[in-house]
């Protein structure tokens, strides 16, 4: 039972990170029907920027906590600029072109970003400076750290903020209108370009935070860290029903928990035949099974003919 609870907690932490990244995918998809394959790389750039800024400032004598805060802000600003430029350079010129065309530019941008990161930061794993003091908590036989608590709370706050933005502000209303029908929304005076750009910018800011979280959770960062993370997050978004905010959050957390439980128990279930190195397949197996029964995800509306 302790292991069970422990794995739920670990899954919740990982899942919150997935959820934050998944929101970026789902917002862009919901508004323009595009899989932004480069989103995982934005997470990676966020993590690496925050390492550089934090360690530079800390080396200059700033207290680590404050330096970390500056690192986070710098990462968010850089990623927001990056998200905006991605949309401007790679996606906006292609609106109205065949559906797979922007997918290829997304892949191209992903390759470009990864290699730029490799040129700037090198091939080696970088250690993430410990932003928060190492405090351990114990509750009902489970252990967790301050970093984990902060990750879960901060993601919850950010998600609440996003929901407020989308459902209670003018920009959010414009976003929802654009998602339903861009042509009609623009007739109603919605500036489509601005709405799409802001979806990219907001998604990228969340991605930057997620990058810093992953970095401080695992204490390392690497120029290839974005790829698998992005893939899992995208899986989470699809699992929940892509284009749906609540779905992305639920999908992310569900995926994190399933992975953690799966990795913890697969050895017992299969009598030791399959070990925890099969962790990465849970995400996909669950996804396939869910989509077999609910073809548009757990919370997705009926999809249109976007074949």
């Amino acid at each position, binding site marked *: 039972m302790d292991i069970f609870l422990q794995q739920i907690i670990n899954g919740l932490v990982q899942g919150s990170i997935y959820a934050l990244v998944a929101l970026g995918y789902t917002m862009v998809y919901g508004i323009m029907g595009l899989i932004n394959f480069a989103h995982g790389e934005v997470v990676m750039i966020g993590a690496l920027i925050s390492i550089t800024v934090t360690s530079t400032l800390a080396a200059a004598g700033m207290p680590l906590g404050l330096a970390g805060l500056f690192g986070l802000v710098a990462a968010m600003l850089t990623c927001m600029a990056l998200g905006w430029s991605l949309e401007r350079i790679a996606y906006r010129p292609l*609106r109205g072109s*065949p559906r797979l*065309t922007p997918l290829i530019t997304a*892949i*191209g941008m992903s390759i470009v970003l990864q290699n*730029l990161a490799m040129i700037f930061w090198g091939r080696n794993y970088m250690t993430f400076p410990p932003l928060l003091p190492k405090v351990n908590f114990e509750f009902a036989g489970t252990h967790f750290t301050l970093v984990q608590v902060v990750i879960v709370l901060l993601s919850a706050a950010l998600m609440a903020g996003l929901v407020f933005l989308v459902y209670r502000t003018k920009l959010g209303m414009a976003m929802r209108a654009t998602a339903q029908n861009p042509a009609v929304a623009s007739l109603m005076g919605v500036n489509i370009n601005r709405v799409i750009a802001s979806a990219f910018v907001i998604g990228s800011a969340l991605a930057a935070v997620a990058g810093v979280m992953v970095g401080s959770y695992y204490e390392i960062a690497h120029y290839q860290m974005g790829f698998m993370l992005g893939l899992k997050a995208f899986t989470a978004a699809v699992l929940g029903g892509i284009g749906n905010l609540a779905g992305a959050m639920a999908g992310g957390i569900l995926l994190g928990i399933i992975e953690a439980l799966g990795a913890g128990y697969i050895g017992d279930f299969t009598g030791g035949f399959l070990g925890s190195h099969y962790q990465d397949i849970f995400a996909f197996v669950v996804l396939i099974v869910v989509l077999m029964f609910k073809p548009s*995800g757990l919370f997705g509306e009926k999809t249109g*003919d976007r074949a």
Partner: protein
Amino acid sequence: MKNWLSPKSMTGIALIAIALIVLPHVVGMGGQAWVRILNFAILYVFLALGLNIVVGFAGLLDLGYIAFYAVGAYTWALLASPHFGLHFPVWAILPIGALMACVFGVLLGSPTLKLRGDYLAIVTLGFGEIIRIFLNNLNSPVNITNGPQGITLIDPVKVGDFSFAGTSQIFGMTMTGPQKYYYLLVALALLVIIINVRLQHSRIGRAWQAIREDEIAAKAVGINTRNIKLLAFAMGASFGGIAGGIFSAMQGFVSPESFSLIESIMVLAMVVLGGMGHIPGVILGAVLLTFLPEVLRYAVTPVQMALFGKILVDPESLRMLVFGLALVLVMRFKPAGLWPSPERSRELSEKPVEVVK
């Protein structure tokens, strides 16, 4: 069929044939490495044509196509290597590989038939990853795939006593292993191209295109969309399986690393960049995208030396950077691909732009 027996097109065919025959010897002057790259280009033509059936003809976005390549490659590797001590002849393995890949294609296709567009994309992607993870981990408790180390000493393609590996004398000419494989691959590629062209204009090909354009309408005119879609998966997969088998014989070595997601994405990029659904375009895309990174590999360092007088940036990442930019730029200026089918480009130019600038 146009009048392809006219003297003009006969000369064209003859010229292409001569070019294809001479090519490996010309390229071989720059080193056998280039012949190997040439062979890979043809293998990618196989793969791209196979994927083109699924994505280009039937309009089903498949991001896990490399899984079938992997199935073909591992089938060959297991049936013709010291790993299990089996040494099947080519005649047996190639069909078995194609059949295995086909079975996997149907296995993937059948639960996903209901899914549309991007949902299908992510499921196929997941399927590809599952296959790779299994290949990577099926070395314990029973050693089937030998895990990340992969399988070595795989038999080359052998017909009777004639082996395609190693240098030998043919008609008084010295031929290296890669050059011999080249001729085998070209012969197979021609066969695959003919099959594809015939398929495209067959009843099945037209059914695929109908499904691509509008699935509901296709159903309404009496197309059994389920079977036809499954057929697309199965056929695409079989081509991938055959390509995989030859890959593993040619290399003599397979490991799960060769079948990562990025490979699936590369093949998809070949199809889209070349011109989806248009066979000459897809071939062009495959050849270009195989050669571009290799040419860049050789070009990047001298260019840097000339510009800055020293190696400023890691050549490996620089070449991939240029490659990524090339993908973005081509799609920006040729959204329908480099060589789209005439109908496709006409549709695109006529279609009113939906979203406001």
